[in-house]
């Protein structure tokens, strides 16, 4: 396929799939009537609308001359390191506490960023841990575990 408005074509497909999925799921709940709307009514209409918009976007993208709107390069490593770091934080937070999670996050981010070597990452983690504990735990009294569950009093 030509690289015609690649972004818009993909976006169109995305909307069609999303709209259709929502409409399909909505049909699983009672639709009801206009007067007595069931839980599925409004989302069903919206899902159809979204799919229709997706078709429109797709149609316009395929018919207009090439704008050169390609999808830009995706560096999967960076995406994975950032998203992964957040997930890791979420996994570690409750069992292992804030400090460990911060370290995990920063190290994970450094894996995707060649400017941040391990030494600097660890240093940053220390600074961040101190700052966060001071601000969130002491100053703002946020309920968040700081140390691993087997270490805290």
């Amino acid at each position: 396929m030509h690289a015609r408005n690649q972004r818009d074509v993909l976006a169109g497909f995305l909307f069609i799939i999303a709209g259709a999925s929502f409409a399909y799921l909505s049909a699983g709940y009672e639709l009801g009537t206009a007067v007595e709307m069931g839980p599925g009514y409004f989302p069903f209409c919206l899902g159809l609308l979204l799919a229709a918009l997706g078709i429109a976007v797709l149609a316009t993208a395929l018919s207009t001359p090439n704008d050169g709107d390609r999808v830009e390069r995706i560096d999967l490593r960076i995406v994975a390191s950032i998203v992964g770091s957040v997930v890791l934080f979420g996994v570690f937070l409750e069992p292992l506490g804030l400090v460990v999670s911060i370290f995990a996050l920063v190290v994970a981010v450094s894996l995707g960023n060649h400017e941040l070597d391990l030494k600097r990452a660890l240093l940053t983690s220390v600074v961040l841990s101190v700052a966060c504990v001071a601000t969130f735990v002491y100053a703002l009294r946020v309920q968040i575990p700081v140390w691993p569950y087997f270490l805290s009093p």
Partner: protein
Amino acid sequence: MDLISNLALGFSNSLTLENILYAFVGCTFGTLIGVLPGIGALATIAMLLPVTFGLPPISGLIMLAGIYYGAQYGGSISAILVNLPGETSSVVTTIDGHQMARRGQAGPALAAAALASFFAGTVATLVIATFAAPLASIAFEFGPAENFSLMVVGLIGAVVLASGPLLKAVAMIVLGLLLGLVGTDINTGVARFDMRIPELAEGLDVVALAMGLFAIPEIIVNLEKREVRESIRVRLRNLWPSGTQLRRMVPSVLRGTTLGSLLGILPGGAASVASFASYTLEKQTSRYREEFGKGAIEGVAGPEAANNAAAQTTFIPLLTLGLPSNAVMALMMGAMIVHNIQPSPLVMTKEPALFWGLITSMWVGNLILVILNLPLVGVWVQLLKVQYKYLSPAILVFCCIGAYTVGTTSFDIYQTAVFGVMGYVLLKLGCEPAPLLLGFVLGPMMEESFRRALLISRGNYVTFVDSPISLALLAIAAVLALTVALPAIKRVRKTAFSEE
């Protein structure tokens, strides 16, 4: 006069030591993240929203609002000194502001920005105070059909004035609406789209969504680009502009304030649109237009006045009609809902202390900013030297902590990650995230109005065009949508958004 007594009520609330402190915190944070590129007001408000849960509603809103207009101040600082706009609304300030800095005029440029912003903020506060009551009283005439149409206009308007390709933006709104419907339906008690995950019964988390859509993709993109930042060693002597400069500023400030106040009220009105419009206006009308691009003080004063005025008047639709006009307002609306304040025209009458307190605190905040920022500029400059590679993990950590504190569950952190991926994909596909957030926040309310309207009309869809107000609103929405298609408007929008 009513206005005076309302303002008095407001000040009695906003001038308590506590609320001044919260305004101070909000403004300082706001300036801080405004100065730092790579993190914006929206993500910060999302991060600090959970922190406000324990505070009285007015204090929470004061702080969050402070972040928003504080960021406008901060953005101009980095725009002038480092040629990097800290906020999108400061993009225009980089043009002449940085040139002024290069010519040794950094001090007057910063002062011009600060003074212009303060003036604009004062005027905007008065505008809000004057127009709030009449607007709210009009809204009282609205029934569910009119409310629905109003929200339609608000959403379409937001998209027309503020985003790129219209079709995709509308699709984003609809997607947002759908996501907003995830969770338990109040009317029927049925849990929708919850994929049998119990945590989803209460719906998706607005904080996670905001951070995932805005903060995370921004970080990823910044790391992808690996920009090199040029910084200027600027010596800040002569902070004060000369007499001639002050005189030249005055008309620009007046024009900018008017433009900003008006644009802020419109749906989709945001500080960035206002500042760009002001720059264009100044270029057309100023006597010194040849200087533009080389360091004309009007090119700083006008846009700065405009963006600050807009940042405040943009609260009007939210506080008087319950309609958020841009993504930041959508988040503020989320904050209000969390504090059990249903945004609607009734807020003015039911919670006058909150309403007027918030409005007057915006003026207090502006005062704090002007007093603080000029002396503290040196501190902010130091901050700019922190390299992004240290900043990005810090931002992520704050996002994660913020997400966690909403429900004290890691599930919200996972939500943020998922939305981060979604936000990144959407960014790569050229879809604007702001309409999605708007739709998300309005989704449940739109369904409610829709449902009630049809209930009253016994299933007859004509009700939406039957009432004159509703018909007028829908017509406005249609006209707005159509004007986008006009070639002239298309050109203007194209240049406006390519500058970003």
